[in-house]
């Protein structure tokens, strides 16, 4: 797709370097001349936003690591010292803590965009799977990072999550002990979590390189989901998408910085400002918001092992998606039925997130009670979680496989430039006239 390179080195030194290590040519081909579909909307700007977020997390994280002490006796105090005595330590720490939330917000929008426009379908399966791998490593990294301040939620969250591994029959307990480096979450655990939290972002960075490489082999998907047919369909990445992504990044930063400067603790849990105490368990142990849907799935299942399997299955399903969706039409713009199920799926994910925050026995509709089915009241968050979990898996394993075979999609445009069938919302007035003059 990216085709043979058209880069021509100009100065003598560049020519000399180009025949030995064509790095300038590579940068030029990936960041400047890369042909990009010209109909990408703002949902396609999150890739650039995510690259920036990874950079911010790496830089702020490396600076934080210069001041942080990974020891059970000092971790909490060292974080407070960063907030109080390190120059602009408050800024660096709040950027890092809220940056994690913003990173996940962007990655979820990026993933939903992929789901809606069918970005996982051939020939982009490998691109999609690398993306899923990035997401999985992000989850692990975020979990490890949340343990480091060694507050109450850090500690007890670590206990709950590491204990999940104990659900594995026979070898579970041994693995948990090995993971802890002892018989409880303690200093050895904190030390290795710090080490791994420092390591994994570089794994993510490596995966991001693969992700971009795979993207540049197949080229971008686009809102119409049709392949690029001619040069008319594309514009060079620079300046067209550098400026569009740049604008989106700037707006995203406005949101991010409004949290950092004016509400830095609203996304966190107050209990995590209490130093970790193994003898006192907080009333409600809940993960950060971006992991709540999986926590709801875990708690929806009465059996611990099955709960863990379903929780990991929820992520595994995203990996398998390219082979679960049987439809050949990529964009849901032309799949009205699938679109409806997709929007329900988005709501279900939000509902799962909300349930993950509530007490399982809490009433969904206050004041109505008494209809016990199986092990709990129907009017409880555990049952709402169960219904939502059922839909979550049905979407991947029933709806998408069956729908692709049974639905009748709308007519799909021939090409990106083809004006007749293009989406009215993104077709500017007069776009039909004289297409040959465009580009």
């Amino acid at each position: 797709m990216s085709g043979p390179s058209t880069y021509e080195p100009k100065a003598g030194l560049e020519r000399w370097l180009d025949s030995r290590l064509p790095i300038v040519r590579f940068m030029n081909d990936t960041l400047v001349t890369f042909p990009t579909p010209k109909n990408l909307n703002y949902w396609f700007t999150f890739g650039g936003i995510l690259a920036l977020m990874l950079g911010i997390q790496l830089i702020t994280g490396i600076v934080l690591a210069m001041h942080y002490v990974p020891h059970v006796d000092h971790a909490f105090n060292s974080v407070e010292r960063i907030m109080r005595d390190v120059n602009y330590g408050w800024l660096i720490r709040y950027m890092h803590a809220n940056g994690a939330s913003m990173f996940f917000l962007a990655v979820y929008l990026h993933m939903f965009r992929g789901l809606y426009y069918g970005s996982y379908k051939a020939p982009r399966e490998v691109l999609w799977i690398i993306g899923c791998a990035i997401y999985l490593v992000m989850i692990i990294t975020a979990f490890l990072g949340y343990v480091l301040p060694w507050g109450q939620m850090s500690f007890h969250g670590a206990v709950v999550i590491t204990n999940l591994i104990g659900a594995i029959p026979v070898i579970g307990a041994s693995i948990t002990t090995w993971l802890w480096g002892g018989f409880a979450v303690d200093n050895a655990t904190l030390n290795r979590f710090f080490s791994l939290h420092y390591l994994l972002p570089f794994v993510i960075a490596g995966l991001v390189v693969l992700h971009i490489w795979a993207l540049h082999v197949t080229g971008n998907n686009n809102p119409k989901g049709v392949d690029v047919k001619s040069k008319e369909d594309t514009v060079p990445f620079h300046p067209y998408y550098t400026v569009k992504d740049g604008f989106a990044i700037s707006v995203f930063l406005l949101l991010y910085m409004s949290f950092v400067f004016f509400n830095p603790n609203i996304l966190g849990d107050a209990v995590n400002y209490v130093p970790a105490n193994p003898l006192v368990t907080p009333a409600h142990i809940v993960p950060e918001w971006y992991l709540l849907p999986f926590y709801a799935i875990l708690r929806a299942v009465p059996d611990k092992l099955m709960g863990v399997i379903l929780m990991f299955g929820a992520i595994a399903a995203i990996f398998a998606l390219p082979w679960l969706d049987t439809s050949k039409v990529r964009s849901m713009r032309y799949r009205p039925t699938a679109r409806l199920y997709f929007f329900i799926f988005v709501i279900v994910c939000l509902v799962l997130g909300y349930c993950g925050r509530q007490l399982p026995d809490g009433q969904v509709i206050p004041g109505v009670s008494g209809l016990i089915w199986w092990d709990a009241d129907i009017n409880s968050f555990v049952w709402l979680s169960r219904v939502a979990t059922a839909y979550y898996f049905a979407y991947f394993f029933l709806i998408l496989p069956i729908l692709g075979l049974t639905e009748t999609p709308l007519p799909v445009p021939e090409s990106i430039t083809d004006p007749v069938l293009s989406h009215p919302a993104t077709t500017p007035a007069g776009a039909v006239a004289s297409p040959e003059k465009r580009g």
Partner: protein
Amino acid sequence: MLRKSIALAAFGLAIIAGPAVASGDPEPPKSVAWSFAGPFGKFDAAQVQRGYKVYREVCAACHSMNQLFFRNLGQKSGPFYDPEYKNPNDNPYVKALAKDIQVNDIDSETGDTIQRAGMPADKFPSPFPNEAAARASNGGAMPPDLSVITKARDGGPDYVYSLLTGYKPPPAGLSVGAGQHYNPYMPGDLAAYWTGKGHAPKGGFIAMAAPLADGKVTFDDGKPSTVEQQAKDVVAFLAWASEPKQTERKQFGFGAMIYLFIFSILLWFSYKRIWRNVGH
């Protein structure tokens, strides 16, 4: 269409998000108009100074503030900041306040444990040498460290204020154990201690007796020393102490937001200009 779906999702959430009120929930905190609330909020230095006095004369008898140094009182946006003394260690007021307090030290000549007058570089000393001593003096309860207390409790400053001013005689039918006190704002579940009619009262038990009383602290600026005033002032002090650089943070943020806003507008016009000839 996606925009519609977001609106739909938000609507869906709004339906489900009715707050679930369990019988064990405490009374929702009173809402106070704090001078430091909001993106432009600032601390009232006089109020934080009075708050420090309340902490020093009342709270400090049992509660440590391990993250605080005397020098913090004189740093920028601190209650005793004086532009004449950029280095808070030179601030005479801070020096005097520190000098009032005896701190533990080691005599460098003999190695003996000694007490000496505090200096701005000293930490606020803990009232108890260790946790066991703190529990022994407080009926088995551990007075929490107050360094970040307004950030460490749901409800923040409002909650701490409500707790301090919310002590009530226990309703008839509630059996209060020895060394326990009823407070409707304290989280807990009183069902097991309730023999009266209907639901158990909201709130919980707290080992701390009502710490404030009218006239307990004499304010040097002549403010009437009511429980409400003392509570407001000490909460303002605790809110400042929980993050002494929060005023700096908000001011910095204001500039950053303006910068980003202008930058976004410029990028928007650049985008419009670059794309003007592309049908898409």
